[in-house]
């Protein structure tokens, strides 16, 4: 049973593009397109954005979006309290959010993956120690760790990446450890051991390639959580500091102008929703897809 599932998921991972697209339903396809559009938008932010995201123009402050009274030419989504173009800030904010979440998810994967692999392969006291750490991390709310770290070390981009990188490592560690433990019982790993392969070779050549699919799934889910997490911290004023735009901080500073200029908040809030919806749908679908047992449901 496990044999079949592994060969299947590996095949699916090897041919990402067309094979997966054909099996997806329309919701997943729309989510993929939205996700891709947001990626393109964030990568091409300097080309797409009509203005510099931090350029202030006090004459044209608090202008509404296209189609409303007092709309000012060129500022399609309106301007904020300092006369900065909201479209430009949104695209650059999206870019930063993407970059931070990607970096955070990678670090989290690196920490959790290494620890999970070591715990699963080494076993014994090392395993106990690492799982103890995982339990401690689960018991301590991440919010507290983030508040403490950001307050003490200040909230530069580096610290932010670090905080986001700690987020969710324990999930990676648990999943990878469990997979590795299962794989170690497999005949091909035992055969490699019997043939005298060194531990590192077993880890990288025989075990690691076979845990790729659960890692991809967890990575997507973790990415989505980190996006929410980053924008929440920036919203609270603990994350990326002004004037740099992230989606969360735009909502955070814009909320003072909610009664008179709701567009300042609406544009970034909707962008956050689009992003988290798209990633969430993709992650969930990938998870069901990678898990043969769930597909019949």
């Amino acid at each position, binding site marked *: 049973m496990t044999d079949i599932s592994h060969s299947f998921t590996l095949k699916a991972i090897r041919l990402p593009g067309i094979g997966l697209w054909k099996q997806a339903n329309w919701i997943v396809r729309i989510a993929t397109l939205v996700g891709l559009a947001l990626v393109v938008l964030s990568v091409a932010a300097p080309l797409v954005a009509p203005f510099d995201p931090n350029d202030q123009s006090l004459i044209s402050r608090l202008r509404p979006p296209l189609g409303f009274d007092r709309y000012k030419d060129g500022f399609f989504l309106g301007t904020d309290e300092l006369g900065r173009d909201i479209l430009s800030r949104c695209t650059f904010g999206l870019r930063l959010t993407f970059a931070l979440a990607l970096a955070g998810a990678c670090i989290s994967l690196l920490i959790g993956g290494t620890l999970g692999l070591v715990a699963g392969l080494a076993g014994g006291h090392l395993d106990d120690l690492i799982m103890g750490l995982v339990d401690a991390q689960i018991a301590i709310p991440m919010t507290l760790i983030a508040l403490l770290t950001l307050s*003490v070390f200040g909230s530069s981009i580096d610290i932010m990446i670090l905080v986001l990188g700690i987020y969710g490592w324990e999930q990676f560690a648990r999943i990878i450890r469990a997979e590795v433990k299962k794989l170690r019982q497999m005949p091909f790993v035992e055969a490699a051991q019997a043939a005298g392969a060194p531990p590192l070779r077993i880890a990288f050549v025989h075990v690691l390639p076979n845990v790729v699919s659960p890692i991809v799934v967890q990575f997507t889910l973790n990415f989505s959580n980190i996006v929410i997490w980053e924008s929440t911290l920036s919203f609270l004023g603990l994350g990326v500091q002004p004037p740099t735009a992230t989606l969360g901080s735009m909502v955070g500073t814009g*909320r003072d102008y909610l009664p008179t200029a709701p567009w300042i908040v609406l544009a970034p809030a909707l962008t*956050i929703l689009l992003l988290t919806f798209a990633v969430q749908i993709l992650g969930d679908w990938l998870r069901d897809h990678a898990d043969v047992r769930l597909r019949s449901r």
Partner: protein
Amino acid sequence: MIGYTLRTLIKMAVTLFVIVSLVFFATRLSGNPVDFVLGVGITEDDKQLLIKYYGLDGSIWTQYWHYLGSILSGEFGLSFLERRPVSAIVAERIGPSLKLIFGTMVFTFCVSIPLGIAAAIYRDRLAGSAIMIIAFLGYAVPAFVLAIVMIMVFSYWLNWLPVVGNSTFSHYIMPTIAMSGMWVAALTRFTRNAMLDVLSQDYMRTARAKGMPERVVILKHGLRNASITLLSVMGLQIAGWIAAGSVVVESIFSWPGIGEMLVRSAIQRDYPVLQFGVLSVAVAVILINAAVDIAYAYADPRIRLAKGT
């Protein structure tokens, strides 16, 4: 059984020790706390005096030792800004936080369990799918976005609900919903899955064959059995979600609770308050988790025996 309880307690103690140490080293590694307290124009002599006064002249390990001692004797220091004992500040904020959390729990259970049951019963119909899509997307809505949109619609546009304050019932509506959002989404999914597992059991068919009314079959035979799975999944998550949710929601609605205090002290760098706040929330979360763990083991002999051997 005693063995299992003991093991849970030991695990709890280790986690507590980790967080206490984490709080200490995080605040000390950032530099000398005296630099944050002092204003400009303080002489070097005064500074040395203060360093001695706060016991910061020893090595980091002696300081750590003193810190552990002061925690055990219940002294947590004074707030940098308010010049009052931090324990007093935290104490007066527990009430509002607990009220909000209680409201959130009641709301969450009242909404998501019926929704989850409905989604399981009508799983092949539009209603079931609609519930699941909403629950699924709801999980991806950050609490602060939900809160802001509600404020925009219900406070500024329709002028129905107040934004700030906690004196009347209407003050509770928006914070409660904002805090429940993600939790409702998750619990609805869990309830549905737990119910689906139970609905296909033999005893459900037997109950129907006996001619019991469908309502009794679902609620008595179905929900009661599903609740075991439900509790095990939810128990350990409740505390953590509350800690995360209250921080965000309380600061949006200026709720005078622990979460708002944590964010404010983090931004103002009022370390004694932040330290004690983080410690007390962590202790609360760990205690709740341990309590859920032990209570659950008492309730379900399978777990007790599996882990207690």
